[in-house]
């Protein structure tokens, strides 16, 4: 420090209470350059510009063209509440330990907990106190304020500190009386802290002393900085810290020689001074001053994310659009390092494949030393590869910017339930990170079947209840599987009528009914778009269990001859109907109220009939009708007060089906065989669980319910036979 380079001035401090300047020879000619002032003043040269400008303003405003004959020295000396005249400016402040200039916030690496600081002091001499002395040592007392104001050197530009030597010591005209300010620093307390954690401390232990003394070759009298350290129990964050310093200051005037010196308590009380003797600290008041610093924490702040822009439930062959993104949230734009510590930034998108049986819980953000595919946290995947690499060789990231890339993938031909997961990773995301990689939360898609069901040859109704049953009125609708871009799905050839939601289910034989709900008649409250339905929940459909009771109850209880002849059967327990080829002309009723009728084989009729009267007609009335997985065709009218299930093995209700999902997956019983039902079906619930064809986008629906003409025309031909009758008929408009 410059203070230690000076020769000839010895300041003796005895027990911190006595000041005696015993040698006042001139200091070596070390002049404060603009660069040095820039480095050590609070705001660099700008501070001096501000102060000298202040002095000039005071000089000109406090008197009208005075000169030293009258009151100009008084004006220069003026000290009031809002003004300090035009002689000196003294200030102390806190800065980083590296330099006194604290105008720029103190920047620290992330993770820093200790902040080396220092208390700086300076006395600045305004233009009237430095050479050239226009008054020539008061021999020219006609010098006016205006003359001084228009003479140099005023510090008026930050480009020039306007270094100048003080005028000789004196107590009149342009001669500075001050020779030193001696500070006793008693304590430092933290009064404001948004940068450090609770419990932050300083290591300052007072009293400490700081001498600011006259320099014969400079108007900038810097004191010796007093160091201390601010320590936070946690890593510093961006914020500010306020310190309150308690201190006393003794000013020395008139002479470097103690015998001719006046010492004054600059911190009060007023009037306490000594002439020719040392003024004890105890005679001075304690003053306080508050100092403020702001802290900037260097941070890379790279946050990787992965966005899947396309469907999350997909079929093999589907396209996947991804956006791997790295968002820059920190304030460092450069300085990044790759995992191998070379300049630049690693950034990549990895692809994982997990088998259907995996119980993967996609993890969140991971900071690891390994690339994604080598990170154990992603265990149980069957394969992993880098899908795309976006390494940034320049390692430059503009702040507050999201760097997004476009990535694409194609879903491989893998079984339903297979998950394909993507992870965006960025290298060294934090300046303090001990790990080389930061991995974004895993984002996954799942391969799934989208089985379809079709209702052809007639309308379909959902909702309401079976007349006369105790079952509650249902608000039901039609819900199909997501088909996305595969271009096929569930549909009704003609109309759909529902008290509830119709979703992902086409009507009128069209696939574009999302925008134009052709022949959809649903309650407006359930789907506003598919208007025209205004059905009440009390709607019922004919109870054929009641309608056919007379015939059924009179039927044979021996089903051994089932399929061989026209006959009515009455089942008093659960029954299984085997495969049967009914041929033509048969009328068969299986009446099993409250019982489960299981169909274990194909039951077919012959379509080659001469007239509708010759068409065979099988009617099954039961509590539940369950069709085994191996059955591919059932030509019958199905009426079940409880449930019709198209794949018995999967279960007869939603809970059971969910528990048996494996049967719907690849290799499962319900996935291998399609089902065609030629005939009307009425059920308290319909569980259609076959998934055949659900993976391949061009295959036919897994289940078809086809209302062939003979189903509703045959009863006309044999109206006296007591078979099912048409419940109602409505003429439909032609399809578009």
């Amino acid at each position, binding site marked *: 420090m410059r203070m230690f380079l000076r020769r000839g001035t010895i300041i003796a401090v005895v027990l911190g209470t006595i000041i005696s300047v015993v040698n006042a020879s001139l200091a070596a000619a070390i002049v404060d350059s603009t660069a040095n002032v820039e480095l050590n003043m*609070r705001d660099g040269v700008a501070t001096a510009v501000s102060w000298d400008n202040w002095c000039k303003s005071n000089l000109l405003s406090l008197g009208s063209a005075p000169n030293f004959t009258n009151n100009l*020295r008084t004006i220069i000396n003026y000290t009031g509440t809002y003004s*300090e005249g035009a002689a000196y400016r003294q200030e102390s402040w806190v800065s980083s330990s590296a330099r006194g200039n604290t105008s720029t916030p103190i920047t620290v690496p992330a993770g820093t907990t200790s902040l080396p600081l220092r208390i700086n002091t300076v006395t600045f001499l305004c233009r009237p106190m430095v050479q050239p002395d226009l008054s020539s040592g008061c021999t020219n007392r006609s010098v006016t304020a205006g003359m001084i104001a228009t003479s140099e050197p005023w510090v008026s530009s*930050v480009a020039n500190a306007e270094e100048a030597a003080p005028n000789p010591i004196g107590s009149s005209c342009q001669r500075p009386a001050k020779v030193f300010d001696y500070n006793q620093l008693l304590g430092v307390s933290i009064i404001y802290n948004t940068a450090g954690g609770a419990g932050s401390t300083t290591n300052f232990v007072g009293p400490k002393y700081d001498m600011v003394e006259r320099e014969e070759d400079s108007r900038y009298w810097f004191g010796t900085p007093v160091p201390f350290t601010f320590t936070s129990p946690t890593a510093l964050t961006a914020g500010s810290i306020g310190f309150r310093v308690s201190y006393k200051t003794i000013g020395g005037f*008139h002479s470097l020689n103690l015998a001719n010196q006046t010492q004054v308590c600059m911190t009060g009380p007023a009037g306490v001074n000594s002439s020719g003797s040392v003024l004890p600290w105890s005679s001075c008041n304690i003053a306080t001053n508050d100092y403020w610093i702001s802290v900037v924490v260097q941070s890379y702040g790279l946050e990787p994310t992965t966005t899947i822009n396309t469907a999350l439930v997909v079929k093999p062959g589907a396209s996947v659009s991804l956006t791997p993104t790295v968002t820059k949230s920190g304030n460092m734009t450069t300085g990044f390092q790759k995992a191998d510590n070379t300049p630049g930034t690693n950034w990549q998108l990895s692809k994982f494949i997990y088998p259907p049986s995996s119980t993967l819980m996609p993890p969140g953000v991971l900071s690891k030393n390994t690339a994604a595919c080598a990170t154990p946290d992603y265990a149980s995947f069957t394969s992993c590869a880098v899908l795309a690499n976006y390494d940034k060789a320049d390692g430059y990231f503009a702040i507050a910017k999201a760097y997004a890339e476009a990535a694409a993938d194609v879903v491989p031909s893998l079984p339903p339930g297979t998950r394909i997961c993507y992870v965006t990773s960025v290298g060294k995301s934090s300046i303090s990170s001990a790990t080389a990689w930061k991995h974004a939360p895993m984002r996954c898609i799942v391969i799934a079947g989208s089985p379809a069901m079709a209702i052809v040859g007639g309308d379909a109704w959902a909702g309401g209840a079976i007349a006369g049953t105790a079952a509650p009125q249902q608000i039901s609708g039609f819900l199909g599987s997501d088909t996305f871009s595969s271009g096929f799905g569930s549909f009704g050839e003609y109309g759909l009528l529902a008290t509830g939601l119709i979703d992902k289910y086409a009507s009128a034989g069209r696939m574009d009914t999302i925008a134009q709900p052709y022949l959809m008649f649903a309650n407006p409250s359930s789907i506003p778009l598919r208007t025209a339905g205004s059905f009440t929940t009390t709607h019922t459909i004919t109870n054929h269990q009641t309608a056919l009771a007379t015939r059924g109850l009179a039927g044979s209880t021996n089903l051994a001859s089932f399929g061989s002849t026209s006959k009515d059967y009455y089942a008093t327990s659960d029954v299984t109907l085997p495969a049967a080829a009914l041929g033509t002309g048969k009328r068969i009723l299986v009446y099993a109220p409250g019982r489960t009728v299981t169909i274990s084989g194909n039951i077919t009729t012959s379509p080659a009939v001469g007239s509708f009267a010759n068409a065979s007609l099988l009617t099954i009335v039961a509590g539940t009708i369950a069709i085994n997985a191996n059955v591919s065709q059932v030509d019958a009218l199905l009426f079940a007060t409880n449930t019709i299930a198209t794949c018995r093995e999967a279960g007869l209700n939603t809970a059971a089906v969910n528990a048996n999902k494996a049967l719907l997956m690849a290799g499962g019983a319900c996935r291998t065989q399609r089902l065609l039902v030629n005939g009307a079906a009425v059920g308290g619930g319909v569980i259609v669980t076959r998934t055949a064809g659900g993976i391949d986008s061009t295959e036919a629906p897994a289940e078809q319910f086809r209302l062939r003409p003979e189903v509703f025309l045959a009863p006309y031909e044999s109206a006296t036979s007591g078979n099912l009758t048409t419940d109602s008929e409505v003429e439909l408009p032609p399809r578009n």
Partner: protein
Amino acid sequence: MFSVAERPRPWYRRKKYIISLVVILLVAGAAGAAWYLLRPQPTTPAPITVITARAVCSDELMARANSPINDNSGSALSLIVDDIKKLPNHNDDPNCVYVLARFALMTGDGAAARTQLERLKYFDVRNYNRALQPVVMSLEDIENAVVVLEKRAQSMKKVMIDYNEIDKAGQP
């Protein structure tokens, strides 16, 4: 009982009461009028508008600015600031404004720093020039620094010493 001639005059017939009443009304009216005229006027806050960023400060200018910013040299940065201020529409480029903000901080000009900070907040995009490195202060960083300047200005104390008295002590 009073006779008619003895009955006291009603208060409202007494001249001095009437005059007093008139004076009171006039004073009250004047006071009310004064209050109305001198009452604090509601101020309409300046509307917050989005500033459409445009490129004004060149790459070369920003490259020149980066060094003194990192060196904390207001004197060196002042030369670049002079050049920036000569550019038309320099307030529409967040890069220009950022340099002005840093210069204001560097020179301890809290008011100017606050002005530039407020301007920075309302740019539709703040794509800082890549010449600015390795650190670009975030809005939060600048806000903290501005607040410190404002707190410092509030807490600054001046030495209250009567130098004329001291002069007297030094004069023979």
